[in-house]
């Protein structure tokens, strides 16, 4: 049932919106083109941010720094009952979605998607966001540099999501 919903959701929404537009006697294709043009402009505006941030992550990862950081953090992680393979995932999740997906697929291969570890990783990906990417894209687009309490709030919400994922998956 839920799988069926997942499968039809996107086509359903698209056809509902277009159908509604036609019934409202709108020039749907003209409207579409106006919006699509705006979408291209948005992507072009985001591109410099994306290049800057992904490059920084790439440098950190290839220098071996991220692995070392995970090793350092494995001691406090055992106090927190955070399973070791989830540490790099939690860290990378804050910065890059595609890199985090890479780590999740690695966990799927090693532990299986139905294992508690695989489930924790899946739930974590579903209940958290790419914190630094979101802040830089959203605030970068309006040139806000004084981000006030956004970072602590976002990290707190993410921590809640991570803890909930682990508790739910390993209980």
């Amino acid at each position: 049932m839920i799988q069926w919903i997942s499968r039809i959701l996107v086509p359903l929404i698209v056809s509902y919106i277009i159908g509604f537009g036609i019934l409202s006697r709108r020039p749907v294709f003209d409207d579409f083109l106006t919006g699509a043009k705006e979408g291209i402009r948005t992507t072009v505006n985001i591109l410099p941010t994306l290049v800057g941030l992904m490059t920084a992550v790439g440098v950190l990862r290839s220098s071996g720094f991220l692995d070392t950081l995970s090793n350092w953090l494995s001691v406090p992680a055992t106090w927190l009952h955070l399973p070791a393979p989830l540490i790099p995932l939690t860290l990378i999740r804050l910065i890059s979605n595609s890199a985090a997906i890479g780590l999740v697929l690695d966990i799927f291969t090693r532990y299986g998607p139905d294992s508690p570890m695989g489930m924790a990783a899946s739930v974590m990906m579903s209940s958290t966001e790419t914190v630094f990417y979101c802040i830089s894209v959203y605030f970068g687009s309006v040139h806000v540099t004084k981000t006030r309490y956004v970072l602590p709030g976002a990290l707190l919400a993410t921590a809640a999501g991570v803890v909930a994922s682990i508790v739910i998956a390993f209980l």
Partner: protein
Amino acid sequence: MLNYLWGFMILTGMLWGAANNNLEAVTQGLLDSAAEAVTLSITMVGILSFWSGVLEVGSQSGLIEWLAEKMEPILNFLFPDLEKNHPARLPIAVNMVANMLGLGMAATPAGLEAMKLLQKDERKNNQASNAMCCFLIINISSLQLIPISMIAYRSQYGSADPTAVLGPALLATGCSTLTAVIFCKLMELRKAVAEK
């Protein structure tokens, strides 16, 4: 903040690479990531402009406005500073609805639009307002009710029940969003007390 973070990331990576005699890999990582960013943008430009186009059809026909009206009580609770007819209300509502449905690509343009409109209220132009902070924190807390891509990855990796993630994900998302809302409300309260 980001200026320092970004600088710190680049310099740490470089120094760490140099200390471990690993600079060749660092250079390669830099080149690969820069290229990956462009590839990602090229993939995104198609999806993003398609969704923006579909959303424009929805907003011109009044469908999105109808949906946003349904969100009104939630917006009133989350953004008490926002006037009843503030132009940012619509994109905020659209962004939240799209996020709930897991349509991240549709959520981003609406979210950026909302930020732009919220920004116009701010006299100190480089400082985030309460509404901007709250909007972004709740956005980052993940509102996704149906993690479509995760279900797809799970099934690709041979899960016996790929959709088993739905219930746990809903629960965990509820936890993170609730935390975000409580945090934002506390910060708002603190500011209100400080101004008195």
